[in-house]
């Protein structure tokens, strides 16, 4: 057996069935061992997609971290944006990189990059394996670290000679023993009682849910808690779908791209329960002032998150799922009916007006129609740009998932993430929605979709511009557009036929319903292009 065989055995022990990657000399021994195993390796068309695909995979699989494996040097550096994206959204990944021979390291040899050094500020932890006997312990620790506490990517850099080294035996440790890593999952009872007593006194409480709720799979418990006490819920972008978007207690996404009535709710509530959210600048204006007129309860598994951007009145460290378990067994009397009525009024009054557009597809109306027609448990992946803002504001999520990159805002995320999501659960419908800019950042993955027969559905909002930047320039630079014109776009019909993927182009609203029917009908890959008004703004 070799070190590479051990690496693959470790993955098997962790239950890994699929990995995403791009081989090269420095990771060749590993891929040779993968070939001889039952693990399915998907060849992406650029390394960044490997990390995004692994991200989409684990967000749907929920059990094990997504795994990607690439070669040293440029392979590893190409992976960096994907790792940073996962880190910003706390997505558990195992990123394996090949490295040059141990004895050559530090000599600036061919395809050498100090990848553990380069990634230091956006991995949860990283390992550079110097001894082949460390492989089982490192893998055991890596999977544990990535998938517990505040989740995140873990990088394992393995020099080629370590992969080739002979090993006698394989012993996978049963448990990890790390004296420096013991995340708190159960909330402190004193704090939990304080939360209940604040809620008892409250007149206008509000739950503000972030991606952390989904990461700890606590959406159902949050919904149960909100429904039990009649507490309204708003979400961050990463939290969309924590409870069904059409739930009467759901009041939309907060933030400068969110719903006016959601922001109004945050401004006027007297007790704000922030769960699994970092309260960043995009979501809340002046987060440091949030506690001046309200009690803020901050629930997060990462103690460093609490008080980082906004000072909480009641910090509560723990995993959202455990905390809602504890909160759910507590009973108290309170009536927030009046507050809900006020919010219902805001929702009615501040609802955006429907825009009529005859010559183009109206993106918001299209997204509502599309997500309404999608299956209840389907996965909607939004990319970055105007498409993301329109998606966040209009998507209807019932029992399904809304995936996007909220923290980093990495263009090109949707197609590889959708591939990963589909591979994680083939029974679910998966739709990636991107703009013409973000589509072209990942369109090489059409080949991966074709090769692996992944029935991923892709929608491209084509407005011939980097729309969100153009819009920004429109409002902030007196309409002087600089380097946002995408007039070199390919003909998407020809492009999809080159990849043997069925195609439909939608020119205006009247064509939308029929097109969506066709698009969603079969479980097959499909590309739909929507012609959007080039001057449309979010």
């Amino acid at each position: 057996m070799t070190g590479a065989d051990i690496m693959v055995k470790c993955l098997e022990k962790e239950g890994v069935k699929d990995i995403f990657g791009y081989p090269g000399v420095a990771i060749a021994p590993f891929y040779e061992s993968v070939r001889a195993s039952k693990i399915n390796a998907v060849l992406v068309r650029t390394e960044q997609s490997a990390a995004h695909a692994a991200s989409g995979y684990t967000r749907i699989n929920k059990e094990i971290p997504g795994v990607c494996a690439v070669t040293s040097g440029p392979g590893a550096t190409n992976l960096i944006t994907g790792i940073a994206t996962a880190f910003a959204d706390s997505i558990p990944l195992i990123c394996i990189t090949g490295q040059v021979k141990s004895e050559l390291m530090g000599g600036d040899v061919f395809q050498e990059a100090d990848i553990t050094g380069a990634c230091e500020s956006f991995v949860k932890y990283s390992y550079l394996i110097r001894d082949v006997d460390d492989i089982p312990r490192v893998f055991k620790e890596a999977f544990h670290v990535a998938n517990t506490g505040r989740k995140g990517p873990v990088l394992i850099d393995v020099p080629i000679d370590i992969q080739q080294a002979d090993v006698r035996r394989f012993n996978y440790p049963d448990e990890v023993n790390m004296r420096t890593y013991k995340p708190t999952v159960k909330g402190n009872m004193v704090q939990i009682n304080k939360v209940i007593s604040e809620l008892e006194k409250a007149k206008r409480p509000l739950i503000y849910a972030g991606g952390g709720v989904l990461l700890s799979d606590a959406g159902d418990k949050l919904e149960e808690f909100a429904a039990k006490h009649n507490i309204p819920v708003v979400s961050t972008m990463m939290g969309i779908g924590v409870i069904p978007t059409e739930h009467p207690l759901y009041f939309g996404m907060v933030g400068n791209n969110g719903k006016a009535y959601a922001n109004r709710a945050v401004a006027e509530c007297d007790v704000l329960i922030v769960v699994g959210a970092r309260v960043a600048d995009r979501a809340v204006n002046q987060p440091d002032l949030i506690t001046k007129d309200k009690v803020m309860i901050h629930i997060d598994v990462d103690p460093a998150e609490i008080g980082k951007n906004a000072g909480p009145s009641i910090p509560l460290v723990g995993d959202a799922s455990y905390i809602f378990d504890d909160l759910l067994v507590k009973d108290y009397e309170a009536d927030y009916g009046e507050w809900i009525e006020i919010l219902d009024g805001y929702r009615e009054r501040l609802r955006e007006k429907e825009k009529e557009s005859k010559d183009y597809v109206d993106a918001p109306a299209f997204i509502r129609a599309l997500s309404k027609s999608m299956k209840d448990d389907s996965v909607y992946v939004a990319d970055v740009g105007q498409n993301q803002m329109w998606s966040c504001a209009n998507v209807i999520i019932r029992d399904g998932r809304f995936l996007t990159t909220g923290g980093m805002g990495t263009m090109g995320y949707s197609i590889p993430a959708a591939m990963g999501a589909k591979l994680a659960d083939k029974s679910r419908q998966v739709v990636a929605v991107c703009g013409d800019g973000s589509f072209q950042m990942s369109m090489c993955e059409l080949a991966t979709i074709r090769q692996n027969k992944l029935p991923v559905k892709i929608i491209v909002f084509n407005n011939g511009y980097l729309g969100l930047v153009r819009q920004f320039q429109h409002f902030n630079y007196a309409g002087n557009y600089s380097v946002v014109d995408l007039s070199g776009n390919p003909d998407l019909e020809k492009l999809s036929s080159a990849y043997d993927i069925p195609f439909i182009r939608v020119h205006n609203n009247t064509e939308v319903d029929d097109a969506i029917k066709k698009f969603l009908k079969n479980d097959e890959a499909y590309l739909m292009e929507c012609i959007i008004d080039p001057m449309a703004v979010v």
Partner: protein
Amino acid sequence: MKRIYSVLVENRSGVLSKVAGLFSRRCFNIDSLAVGETNDPHVSCMTIVSSGDKRTIEQIEKQLNKKLDVIKVKTFEENASISRELMLIKVKYNKNNRRDVMENCDIMGASIVDMSKTHMIIQMCDTPERTSLFINMLNGVSIVEVARTGCLALQKCSEE
């Protein structure tokens, strides 16, 4: 506000850069940083002196605790600790100022540990304030080189 962080870390390669990188990335100040092995060879102790407002001080401790190589973080104010810094100064002297230099050393409890006909190395171990003061006192003498370890600190026995 000034704070001293006494940080026990795993004695592994790369840990220093991880901890130092954390400070630069999050825009925390480092006034001084000193590292050395403890009585357990697997554990190193880093003494970091930093300053910032209340939120920053709290964040530094939390972010340090979050690092997987960090075993334990102790934070204390200067007056709750005994702090020392070792300094070596090489000066160029002449017969006019030689006596002055020696007198200054006497007053400040510094010792001359090496000497030639033109140069001497002075060693001083004291609080960072007094080592700085000593540099000021040598103003009239031409200082060739200064090496300081940075502050080492332990919490006072009475605070345990």
